[in-house]
Structures are given as structure tokens and as C-alpha cells.
């Protein structure tokens, strides 16, 4: 497994920041979805297959999440970028378990940081309360750009931390192949649990449930045909 060069790390850092901004602030174009963030990170790291595989696996976790309003939810985007950086270049499923563990820790930290950001934005709002009450357009602009800037810094720090973790995992991988296999199995099992649990919850008892069951049946048939 070749080391990640500084240019690749810088590009991953920039991509992770873009992805973190995309989740809520701008432009919400779905770059933050793990399947997108992971594939592009794989392209940057020179291992598209690892990017797609980790992207798909972490997308199963993201499908369990409803990113609505004031809810607290994990930030899977920068976490996926870090996971791909940790696993790129290694044969599948080696490093999968540890990469997903890193991603889960980072996703939780990302969710927490998003909540802190919202409090910081509120504090900035208090600081400009008089300008807002006076109908100051520069005041509104300053708040808007301040919020965007704070989220960019959040994304940058989160991705930098994730990449540091990825470099550590690349330098000191778990050596026992049986442990790697166990961790990979755990990561895949938990991802399937996440998507199935979320799908069942969203389906409720209405028509969506019947369509979910029909989709499952179709998926099983195609999977069996693929052998």
C-alpha cells in the first residue's frame, strides 16, 4: 500500500471541507452523501474501487438518517473521506473494519460539531441584534457569510482530524487477518442493520411497506441471478 502524498492529502482535505459545507450550508447538492463523497475521495486517492465500496457501505448508514431541521444527526461526509483515505490501496476487505470505525467516530463528532456551530451562529446573531432590528443589510450579509465561514472551518478541522486518523491507521494497521475479517463482518452487518431498520421505520404500515417488500423480493431475485 503506497503512502498518500502531500498533494493527495491536500486535495482530500479540500474535498472533505466542500463535503462538510454541502451537508447543510451550501449548496446541498448531495456531495455529502457517502456514496458521492467516497467515490470522489477514491478518485483523488487513486483507488476508485475502495471509494465506491466504502461509499456504498457508509451510504447504508446514511439512509437511516433524516437530516431535518433541528434534529441532531451524524455528519457522514468528511467521515467517508477519511475512511477512504485509510483504506485506499489495500485489498478488500482488509482495513474495512478499522476504516468504518474511524468513520463512525468522525460522524458522531461531526454531528456534535454541527450542533456547536448552530449555537455559535446564534451567539453571532445576538452580537448583531441591533443591526438586525434596524434593518441593516450589511448586518444580514455579515451574519450569512460568518455562518458559512464557521461551517467551512468546522469541515476543515473535521477532515484534518479524520485524515490524521487515516494516516495512523495506514501506519499501524491491525495485523491479525482474523481480526480484520471479524471487523469487516461487523461493519457490513451493522450497515445492513442500519438501512433495514431505517427502511422498516420509514415504511410504517402503509403502502410504502408493500413496496419495500416488493423491492426486497426483486433485489433477492437479482442477487441470486448474479450468483
Amino acid at each position, binding site marked *: 500500500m503506497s503512502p498518500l502524498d502531500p498533494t493527495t492529502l491536500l486535495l482530500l482535505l479540500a474535498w472533505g471541507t466542500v463535503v462538510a459545507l454541502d451537508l*447543510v450550508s451550501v449548496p*446541498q*447538492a*448531495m456531495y455529502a*452523501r457517502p*456514496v*458521492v463523497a467516497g467515490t470522489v475521495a477514491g478518485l483523488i486517492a487513486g483507488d476508485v474501487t475502495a471509494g465506491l465500496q466504502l*461509499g*456504498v457501505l457508509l451510504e447504508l448508514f446514511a*439512509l437511516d438518517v433524516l437530516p431535518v*431541521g*433541528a434534529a441532531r444527526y*451524524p455528519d457522514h461526509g468528511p467521515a467517508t473521506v477519511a475512511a477512504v483515505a485509510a483504506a485506499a490501496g489495500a485489498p*478488500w476487505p482488509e482495513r474495512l473494519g*478499522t476504516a468504518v*470505525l474511524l468513520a*463512525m*467516530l468522525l460522524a458522531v463528532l461531526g454531528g456534535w460539531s454541527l450542533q456547536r456551530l448552530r449555537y455559535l*451562529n*446564534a451567539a453571532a*446573531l445576538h452580537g448583531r441584534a441591533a443591526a438586525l432590528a*434596524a*434593518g441593516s*443589510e450589511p448586518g*444580514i*450579509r455579515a*451574519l*450569512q*457569510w460568518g*455562518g458559512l465561514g464557521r461551517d467551512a472551518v468546522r469541515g476543515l478541522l473535521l477532515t484534518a482530524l479524520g485524515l490524521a486518523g487515516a494516516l495512523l491507521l495506514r501506519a499501524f494497521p*491491525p495485523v*491479525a487477518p482474523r*481480526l480484520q*475479517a471479524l471487523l*469487516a*463482518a*461487523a*461493519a*457490513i*452487518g*451493522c*450497515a*445492513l*442493520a*442500519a*438501512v*433495514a*431498520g*431505517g*427502511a*422498516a421505520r420509514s415504511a410504517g404500515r*402503509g*403502502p*410504502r*411497506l408493500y413496496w*419495500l*417488500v416488493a*423491492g*426486497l423480493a426483486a433485489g433477492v431475485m*437479482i442477487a441470486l441471478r448474479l450468483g
Partner: protein
Amino acid sequence: MTAPGRVRAFLRLFAIQGDWNYERMLGVGMGYAAEPLLDELRTRDPVRHTAAVVRSAEFFNCNPNLAGLALGALARAERDGVPGEQVSRLRTALCGPLGAIGDRLFWTGVVPALSALAIAAVVLGAGAWAIAGFLLAYNTLRVGTAWWSLRTGLREGLQVGGAVGRSWLPRAAERVGPMAGFAVGLAIPLAGRWLMQGLAPTVMALVLFLAVGGVALSRWGGTHYSAVRYALVVLILLAAGGMVML
């Protein structure tokens, strides 16, 4: 309202959550996006303009993809000289419906449906093209919806609620749910098969055990359960136990 002003407001819609906070939620983002639409009032009625700017950044919350409806309707109401209290009431009244329809349409409908289809396409061999297709499909729909929303809001003003009720939105929100259910159902076995390639049968049994256990916990585990917490606990326990035993 000038065409460049409308375009600037439209572009600013994509950063409507740029200053999301627990006090005004989308309020500041709405104020920022409203600025080009309220420009005309600045010379025509400066007092009204100042009051409109103050109102434009007050509390607001809805699905960001439908914020253009409220933005357009509120700007039109300000331009038409509707009393300030009525503008504020319209603002409050739009939060719930635009949040509910938008969340159903996008967050529980379009996004899971397209994401699951992208997963299925990756598994079936489309590779990175599946991701390009996902981005193209989502953003075409989303940009089109944002443009339609802003235009509808500007055209309808105070009547925007009725216009939304008669539009394609409620029907689409109703229909996309079952489609998302089907797509996610399709993706689960395909993704499972793809991710488990090359694993030994005993390891596959562990995957299935953990998957079934996680689903059971999500159903009966109460509010403390979350998929990420479950994964963290399982992975940390296995890593710690494995390092000691293996």
C-alpha cells in the same frame, strides 16, 4: 423586481441554510436571499424597505428546497404594500406546510430513492457513472423545483398556499414515498451480496447475525438505539476483544 434581482435571489437560495441557528433557523438565510428582491422598494418607499428587511430575517423554517415559495410570496407581498402584520402571519403560516411537504418529497422520498438506485447501479456494474447519474438526477429536480418555487411565490403572493395545494407538489410527495420504499428494498440485498463478496461462510453468518440483531434493536431498543451507536459498540468491542485474544 428586475430579472437580475430574481436570478441573484435564486442563486442565494442554495445557501439559504448558511447561517442556520436554533433561534431564527433559516431566518438570516431568507433575509440574505430576499435582499435583491426588496431592492426596488429602497428608492420607492425607504421606510417600507427598512421594515421589510427587518421582517425578511425574522424566524423562518421549512424544507430548504421549497424556501423559494415563501421567499417569492413574501417579497411580492412587501412590494404590493400588504400590511406588515399580515406579511408576518403569512411567513409563520408557510413554515409548517412547506416543511412537511418538502421533507416528505425530498428527505424521505427523492433522496433515499435516488441514493438506493445509485447503490443498485454500482452493484450492477455502472461504477462511478452511477454516482454521476445520481447527482445529475437529484440536482436537475432540485434546481428545477427551486426555480419553479421562486416564480410561483412571486406570481401568487398572498395566494401561495392555495397555489401549492393545487400544484404538483402534494401528489409528488405522496407518490415518491412508495418509490423510495421499493428502491431501498431493491438495494439492500444487492448491496449485501456485493459487500460480502470474498468473505468466508462463517464470517457471512456473523454479518447476518449482526444485521438481524441491529434490526431487532432498532425496533425494540428504545430511544437510546441508533445505527451509528450500535456500529461503534460492536466495532470497539470486537477490536478490543480481538486484540486481546488473537
